[in-house]
């Protein structure tokens, strides 16, 4: 339970961090909250030769409104997300999901940037960001670019981020009128990854769903954006038939592994149950219920 040797770096700016990352290439890893990376290092499943700690980098811990959209600095902790009443009012699913992540100690250190950038399909925020149609801001030696959350995840712990890029911020579009959000997570205990979890963001306009997004956590090799499920709700009254169709479409794209919490069939069924509950909750919230 002791990591292999590594060199520790503590840059003071994003530019400095990017140049360290460029210099060390594959041998370098950035450290945010450390609650995924450090356990992996202690088990020697990860042995980065250079650890680039972003905790000294200025300007990455912030929550701001920019032209209606929400900008969250990548080093903002889950605890800070939960503590922000303003954020909870503008985008309630963030607090709802963050409170289901790990435990208070982990949330005090764990960051939203680390949660989405690690590419762990078990992390909760990627599906939430997919449902919100958020985008991620990346800085590399060639400058800054923005990628949609829905396009970001490529495989287990593999993302569209280049090795020499750092995720610096998340941008979440403004919540329109009639939008309801919900995150439902089935887990055994505090600190556990989801057996199955679903994020749903939908907008009700005069009894009809004008826009819907469903995304799933820990049910495949990446976080999953359930496009067909989302489409199955759009344009409907989100009635029983539409929900059934959406649930079926969501379950269809899942491909979880069996683990100690249950076999594949159970986890897929629970994907359906969580999707159903998230849709019903989001619809109720959208209509003020």
């Amino acid at each position, binding site marked *: 339970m002791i990591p292999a040797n590594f060199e520790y770096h503590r840059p003071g700016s994003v530019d400095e961090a990017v140049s360290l990352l460029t210099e060390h290439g594959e041998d370098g890893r950035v450290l945010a909250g450390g609650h995924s990376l450090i356990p992996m290092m202690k088990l020697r499943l990860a042995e980065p030769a250079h650890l680039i700690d972003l905790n000294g980098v200025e300007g990455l811990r912030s929550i701001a409104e920019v032209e209606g959209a929400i900008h969250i600095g990548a080093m903002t902790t889950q605890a800070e997300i939960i503590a922000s009443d303003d954020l909870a009012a503008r985008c309630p699913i963030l607090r709802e999901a963050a409170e289901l992540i790990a435990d208070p100690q982990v949330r005090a250190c764990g960051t939203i940037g680390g949660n989405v950038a690690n590419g762990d399909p078990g992390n909760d925020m990627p599906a939430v960001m997919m449902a919100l149609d958020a985008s991620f801001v990346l800085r590399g030696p060639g400058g800054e670019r923005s990628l949609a959350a829905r396009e970001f995840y490529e495989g287990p712990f593999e993302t569209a981020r280049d090795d020499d890029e750092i995720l610096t911020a998340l941008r979440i579009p403004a919540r329109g009128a009639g939008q309801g959000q919900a995150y439902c997570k*089935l887990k*055994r*205990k505090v600190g556990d990854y989801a*057996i199955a979890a679903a994020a749903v963001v939908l907008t009700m306009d005069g009894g009809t769903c004008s826009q819907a997004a469903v995304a799933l956590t820990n049910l495949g090799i990446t976080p999953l954006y359930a496009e067909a499920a989302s489409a199955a709700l759009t344009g409907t009254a989100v009635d029983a038939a539409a929900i059934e169709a959406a649930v079926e479409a969501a379950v269809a794209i899942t491909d979880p592994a069996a683990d*100690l919490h249950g076999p594949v069939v*159970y986890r897929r069924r629970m994907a359906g*149950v969580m999707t159903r509950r998230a849709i019903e909750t989001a619809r109720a919230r959208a209509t003020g219920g």
Partner: protein
Amino acid sequence: MSETQTETQAETQTETQTATTAEREAALGGIGCDKRRKEDARFIRGQGNFVDDIKMPKMVFGDFVRSPHAHARIKSIDKEKALAVPGVIAVLTADDLRPLNLHWMPTLAGDRQAVLADEKVHFQNQEVAFVIAEDRYAASDGIQLVEVDYEELPVLIDPKKALDDDAPILREDVKDKDEVGQGPRRHPNHIFNWQSGDKDATDKAFDGAAVTVKEEMFYQRVHPSPLETCGCVASMDAVSGRLTLYGTFQAPHVVRTVVSLISGLAESNIRVVSPDVGGGFGNKVGPYPGYVCSVVGSIVLGRPVKWIESRIDNISTTAFARDYHMSCELAADKDGRITGLRANVLADHGAFNSHAQPMKWPAGFFNIVTGSYDIPTAHVTVDGVYTNKAPGGVAYRCSFRVTEAAYLIERMLDVLAQKLGIDKAEIRLRNFIKAEQFPYQSCLGWEYDSGDYTTALKQAMKAVGYEELRKEQAEKRARGELMGIGIATFTEIVGAGPSRNCDILGIKMFESCEIRVHPTGSAIARIGTKSTGQGHETTYAQIIASEIGIPSDLITVEEGDTDVGPYGLGTYGSRSTPVGAAAAARAGRKIRDKARKIAAHMLEVSESDLEWDVDRFTVKGVPDLSAAMKDIAMAAYSNLPEGLEHGLEVVDYYDPPNMTYPFGAYICVVDIDRHTGEISVRKFYALDDCGTRINPMIIEGQVHGGLTEAFAIAMGQEIVFDEIGNVLGASLLDYFLPTAVETPHWETDHTVTPSPHHPIGAKGVGESPNVGGVPAFSNAVVDAFAHLDVTHMPMPHTAWRVWQTCHDLGIDK
């Protein structure tokens, strides 16, 4: 009257020597007092002194190279690269220990266990080499670089296949032996066959029975998982030749004897110290390879060697519990009165038989399986087998296989009730041993000391509103909702144990207490047990306070240092109160006997003219003429009658005449989400009868802890292996330790039925809630499905297993 007023008044009266009896009793803080725990002051400040807090000059660190395979032959071990790591001092293998004959060590069950794998590995993560380095970092780097060449062998994981003709033979070192310490065996993978009861009479009872039921149950392999893992610091003083071994030991004196036996060092040259220990639960009773390797390392290097387990090491290699495949049948008349019980058990003991029971009891006290019920005849067999899993089979917060037995009989009562359509409380009331039957001789050979089960269950039913709950359940069932009510009315058997049938390595399972009263009226007591969190420093002081009339705050309690305290067998199996507290009370009485002689001298009366009054002797009929214990203490050193030795000091060794039999009545109410299988524990009521209650607040804490562990076991704990012997989920990411969020609210209650043979009538309580809690949960879960003809569901009751039941019944949609 306000608290302040009371205190002020008490002070004034004390000053004027006119305090009432009640006030003097209160000032003692003795038996029955809700005293805060003395030890908590250091624990809540982070000032405890645990093994890993010990730092010694020139101390080095050891860590193990462990086997990735469950069964493999070791072809070669290459230390060269590891030895080249800066800071690595030595790498020990079985070949290095062989000349000292320390590559194997005896187990507490008559078998032997490899210290470092000798030619073969028998389970995943088994200790293969011990790397000693200047610091933990170098040791950790070193273990990565020891190159071990393995030849994989066929793996035996399913104990039901262990005795097959074509099963791989695991223990080649004992394959030709007719027995391995616990009686004859019939296969190289067989360890023992143990039987209890009357087979013929039981067969007869079944032949003529109006009704019989049978159920197969598996009590899964679990791990005690104490907060602090195991560890030690071994320090050999090359000049004096004395070895000091600090470690996480529940039984330090026994460890000293074991170390002496296997090392050849004189016991006088060994000092074993258990400092503060962060939970044991049976995990810290037996000897482990880490202790032996640290001792050898220290002897060879002349430097202290520290070894501390990681969490994964702890869960995957040190002693597990349960792993009992049980089959049980009950015979009964048409009214549900049980006429016979038959139980057969296949016990998976892993690669070495290193369970920790009194040595004559290979299946512990499993034959307490008739429980709280007046069952006229029974027969029990238990077969132990080897598999390619970590060794163990310890009593995890219970007394020697009592949890398995209580689980089996409490579940079987429900199975029988369902078969006959009798209410699950009613079937218990019909079968209980009646209060007037105590002392009760069970058909499997135990003499229950005292009990009143009917009163306890009726009190429990009233407290929870049992009839109302059953009505609500019926309404819910009509609506398709799942609600379960679980009852467990268990009896424990604790306090090992009487010398006629309990020993470890031949040493009888007595307990000891030494008391020294100081001249100015305070005292120190030393007991052979060892608290791992039970609060001994407080409760022993309370008992002694009541016996010798010195306030418990002025009595220091010490345990755990073999150079200091008298020999004792340690703390496990709820034995500290039944055995240790008895020694403490008797030692107190011996102090009082001498004090009486001194008091008679001080008051110039004869001993027979004196009577004991809380904290003093008074002259009969002249209450104003008295000698207080405080003054007697000074007299013991300054003003003695002729012929009496100076000092006020005794030691007592207590051999219990019988076990004690705490009992309880638990009722659990659950609601189940039929879509997800999630269980919500709505209510848990626990009535415990542990006889005389020494400190009600500590009892409540013990019950909370035991129930929480019962909840963990019933709902989630399991050590799982895949088909090639990989241990799955050996970290706290997977192994279920519930947090405050998942843990239900506990309602506690009690009755008091003192033990007639214990000096203060106390029975022990720390483990009852685990023993009774697990079947209460399981019974509640199964009861939720009872109307759908479900009679048993396997533990642990994880959401997916419960969902599977719902799914099979077609009610998950």
